[in-house]
């Protein structure tokens, strides 16, 4: 028993000694940073990186930031921290403050140029590969992949041998392959590397493989075929990306247009003030957020959940007021309605400009809506995803209201046959007012969503009104499904045209397409069938 204990103590001591020996060696290497010019410094950096000791990371980071100085009196190297006009010297390994208030004359900076900074970065990448923290290791593996430094191959191999995490190990293998491709290793090894890189299949691997396609022999051939595979994969991912962007734009269009589909499509009222309802919703969000910021900052993340119903109420109330005050006198005269509502939109814009000022207002994004995740090579931001989901929720809620509630039943009855509905005891004027309020309220909710991706300014609504009309007319008036299909089609078409034609020209093409489409099908994609000659 005693013997075992002695052995254990001995082993422990030897381990401690070897640790301290290692630390001393590292300290010597660090202190050597202060000697000689750029060349010597670079050599020292690689030597430090070769130790693979994570303790060297802080000094390297400081070196990159230009915070490493040599004390002139004894030639020792310190990390410094500037306090006013003097410096605090910090021990590079322990991180303790060694000396305070050192004048700038007593120390000399270890100068770095861009070449050295690069060396530092790759050295850091190598060091952090060993870090116990998986997130750091992942970052480091990505960084080593980017730098693809042939000198770090051995280091990567060491890290790879120790790596337990499958995903990081894959990253490391790719990093190794990238480094191998840049090195002068034998062809067989390079061919393996090409396969590994080809499997990765993104833009970075393309840029690694492209220079190889011009080389002779099997490597060149392998690289060429890998490049063409990657290219076709990338084209697919690009397509997917465009579809996603298109869906995202389409959902915005859907949100903006869906209220219009009610007022224009169902009631036949051309509401040019529709965009201003969207704007009112966005400003409601702004006001809600201001109140929360000033009174209850901890509620900020839920501000949008408060703003959505409020925006519905605000815009809906304004809508009911407009219907009762103006539009009800103009039924049966659609062109006049158009002019009157345009007048309303001018007044609302100017009113908002007078109250909130003409400049953009800052609407914050709750923390749960910021950030993104990747599906393959498609980047999906949470705020866009939230808007897509929100627009679908609004759409289906509206469907339920129209198809499954007494109010929806009355509404459809009034649209289909007003005198008959009236004879059945439905109060048609109230149904009109509420329908208009519903359409406006939905526009207000759209405003909450749009405030997250667009500038909240008095002109917010103007930029959506023409698009919304296009969606409704394209999809077919009086048909909500048409609006959904129309919005998504136009959104996706727009995004697919953009890479070829540019954003503006793409939009023009879409407009021209709609103009031509209306010639072909004057009642839209999903026309209501009926016997009336003139709707």
């Amino acid at each position, binding site marked *: 028993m005693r013997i075992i204990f002695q052995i254990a103590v001995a082993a422990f001591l030897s381990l401690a000694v070897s640790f301290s020996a290692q630390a001393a060696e590292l300290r010597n290497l660090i202190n050597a940073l202060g000697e000689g010019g750029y060349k010597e410094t670079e050599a020292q950096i690689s030597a430090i990186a070769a130790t693979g000791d994570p303790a060297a990371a802080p000094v390297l980071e400081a070196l990159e930031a230009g915070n490493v100085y040599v004390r002139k009196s004894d030639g020792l190297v310190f990390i410094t921290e500037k306090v006013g006009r003097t410096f605090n010297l910090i021990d590079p390994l322990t991180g303790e403050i060694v000396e305070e208030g050192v004048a700038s004359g007593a120390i000399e900076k270890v100068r770095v140029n861009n070449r050295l900074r690069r060396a530092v970065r790759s050295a850091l990448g190598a060091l952090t590969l060993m870090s116990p923290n998986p997130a750091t290791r992942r970052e480091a593996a990505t960084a080593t992949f980017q730098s693809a430094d042939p000198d770090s191959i051995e280091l990567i191999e060491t890290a790879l041998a120790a790596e337990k995490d499958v995903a990081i190990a894959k990253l490391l293998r790719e990093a190794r392959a990238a480094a191998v491709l840049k090195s002068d290793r034998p062809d067989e090894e390079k061919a393996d590397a090409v396969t590994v890189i080809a499997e990765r299949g993104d833009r970075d691997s393309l840029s690694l493989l492209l220079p190889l396609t011009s080389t002779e022999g099997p490597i060149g051939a392998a690289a060429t075929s890998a490049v063409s595979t990657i290219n076709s994969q990338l084209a697919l991912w690009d397509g997917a990306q465009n579809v996603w962007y298109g869906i995202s734009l389409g959902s915005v269009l859907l949100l903006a247009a869906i209220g219009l589909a009610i007022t224009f499509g169902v009631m036949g009222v051309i509401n040019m003030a529709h965009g201003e309802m969207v704007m009112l919703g966005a400003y409601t969000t702004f006001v809600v957020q201001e109140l929360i910021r000033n009174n209850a900052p901890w509620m900020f993340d839920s501000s949008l959940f408060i703003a959505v119903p409020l925006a519905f109420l605000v815009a809906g109330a304004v809508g009911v007021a407009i219907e009762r005050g103006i539009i009800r006198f103009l039924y049966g005269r659609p062109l006049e309605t158009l*002019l009157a509502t345009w*007048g309303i939109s001018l*007044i609302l814009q*100017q009113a908002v400009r007078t109250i909130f000022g003409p400049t953009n207002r800052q609407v914050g994004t709750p923390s749960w809506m910021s950030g993104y995740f990747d599906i393959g090579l498609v980047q999906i931001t949470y705020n866009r995803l939230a808007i897509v989901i929100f627009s679908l929720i609004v759409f289906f809620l509206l469907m339920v209201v129209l198809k499954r509630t007494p109010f929806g039943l009355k509404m459809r009855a009034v649209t289909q046959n007003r005198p008959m509905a009236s004879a059945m005891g439905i109060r048609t004027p109230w149904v009109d007012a509420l329908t208009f309020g519903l359409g406006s309220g939905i526009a207000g909710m759209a405003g909450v969503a749009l405030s997250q991706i667009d500038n909240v300014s008095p002109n917010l609504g103007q930029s959506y009104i*023409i698009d919304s009309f296009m969606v409704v007319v394209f999809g077919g008036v009086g048909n909500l499904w048409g609006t959904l299909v129309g919005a998504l089609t136009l959104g996706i078409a727009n995004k697919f045209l953009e890479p070829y034609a540019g954003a*503006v*020209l793409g939009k023009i093409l879409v*407009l021209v397409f709609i103009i031509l489409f209306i010639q072909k099908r004057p009642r839209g994609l999903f026309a209501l069938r009926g016997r009336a000659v003139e709707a």
Partner: protein
Amino acid sequence: MITTFIRNGIDRSWVVVVAILLATAIVVPVLNLYTAASSPLHVPDYAVPLLGKYLSFALLALSVGLIWGFCGILSLGHGAFFALGGYAMGMYLMRQIGSRGVYGDPVLPDFMVFLNWPELPVAWYGFQYFPYAMLMVVLVPGALAFVFGWFAFRSRVTGVYLSIITQAMTFALMLGFFRNNLGFGGNNGLTDFKDILGFNIQAPETRAALFAASAVALALAYMMCKAIIASRFGKVLIAIRDAENRARFLGYRVEHYKLVVWTLSACMAGIAGALYVPQVGIINPGEFEPANSIELVVWVAVGGRSLLVGPIVGAIVVNFAKTWFTTGALAPYWLFALGGLFIAVTLFLPKGIVGTLAEGWSALSQRRASARAESGIAPTNRDGPPGGRLSPEAAE
């Protein structure tokens, strides 16, 4: 057409309107050029192009009044034709600058030099000749309107659908003209003009002449519209306005009638734009904004579209109000006023100022006539109530 015009067209209102316009064409320039600045009758220099601008707007409003009031086509994109005419004129004026531009290039306008364009784009060829440019002022908007109308009317796009796609048209054109590489000056448009037909465009004499030209053009256009309305062709137009399907079932090729009057209206709008640009001194893509086209429709609505004078009066009144509002302390409230005007006119004055006045007048004269008839004198009401037959609203 001419004979019917002579037979039906000569009524008092026609003579009065043309006489007023021609008198303005003479009086304003004379008062500007030949009276002392101190004289109470003097028209200040700044006012001449301003009034000229009103007149070109009146011509534009007249072109909309013709199709909206008498054929039931509400265009929300007429500003596009106006702007195209303006651009044609602007291109002529740009070519007249010659080597006096900032960069001194004898052929290329400044913005092309600035964008490093090697040579003049084909679209600009020939614009140094005034007659060619004037031809383009009419042809370009006319051709666009013809193509657009041919498609739209043939497939029976009517009512609000037509309004919406005309709006899309002007919106698309606006986006296009904002692009630098379309070759029409992009964002900044065309400006910094020097000469027109060899005369300095800033000189009071030139401005007076441009003013007179605007007034005369308006008078001619008014006479032309009046002739159209009075003719057989005009009767069919009114029939289309009031009951398009009935007119079609009676055997009229509705789309042809619409296409002719629509194209003609676009040409008038183009001429209005060409008169507007030299008096204002700039044309930029902002003129294509859908909001402008909608505002112009409200001029027509304010004046009243049941009579051809209505749009003219409306354009002048609204624009005068706009100048008065936006130059004074009330500037921030202009949009309130304009918006209120939109609502008030549609709710309370569906026939517009002129229409309401004319209606009141004819009601009054009818009462007098019936009073006279009661006392044994035969009624002399030859014209019947203006805009008679069916009210324009029924057209929609």
